[in-house]
């Protein structure tokens, strides 16, 4: 399984802070994004935002990063702390 987390505006828009998805061969951050976007119109809209960021195992990365079973993948908007 892959643990998927959502934060801030995404968490609110999707009414979801985490879910589990099945790992498959040759999985990438982009493929997970697309898989989630296919859920419905709301998910499609939220997951296609230009500003969307993704982290794998708590490290920000790009959309071609490979993802394996046991990984933690997080989606969130640009950060605004400080």
């Amino acid at each position: 399984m892959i643990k998927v987390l959502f934060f801030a505006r995404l968490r609110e828009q999707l009414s979801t802070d985490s879910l589990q998805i099945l790992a498959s061969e040759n999985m990438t951050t982009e493929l997970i994004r697309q898989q989630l976007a296919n859920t419905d119109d709301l998910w499609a809209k939220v997951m296609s935002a230009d500003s969307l960021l993704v982290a794998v195992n708590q490290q920000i990365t790009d959309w071609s990063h490979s993802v394996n079973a046991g990984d933690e993948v997080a989606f969130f908007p640009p950060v605004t702390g400080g």
Partner: protein
Amino acid sequence: MINVQQNDFIVADEYQKLADDNQDGAVVTFVGKVRDFNEGLGVQGLSLEHYPGMTEKVLSEIEAEARDHWPLNKVTIIHRVGDLTLGEQIVFIGVTSPHRRAAFAACEFLIDFLKTKAPFWKKELTSEGSKWLEAKASDSKISQQWSTKLTN
């Protein structure tokens, strides 16, 4: 020292912990507070969310990067999460060094990178409801300027 916490911090105590070493000629601190931010909407407070685990990891990496660039002795980074009211303290950055330029540069570097790299999100609570803050283009520009400056 890196802390992500709900509770307020006491600047006097943090200063004291930083300042007890005679090798350090310079102590620079930055405190960021909840203020009436952008568009004059009557901000009453903020709600601060973060990504537990990743936050601490990113802050450690930023600290390590600062230590690569400048001769620092002590570094303290404290960031609060949860609900904060207007005027409350959000973030404390404290740096000590034998050299004042290093202390200033590192302190500013740390807050600049915290703002663009650490997974915190601010939701503004105004009299007209709550609203997630947009990331500022000026902040990412500042981070980029650092990267240019430090690699040249």
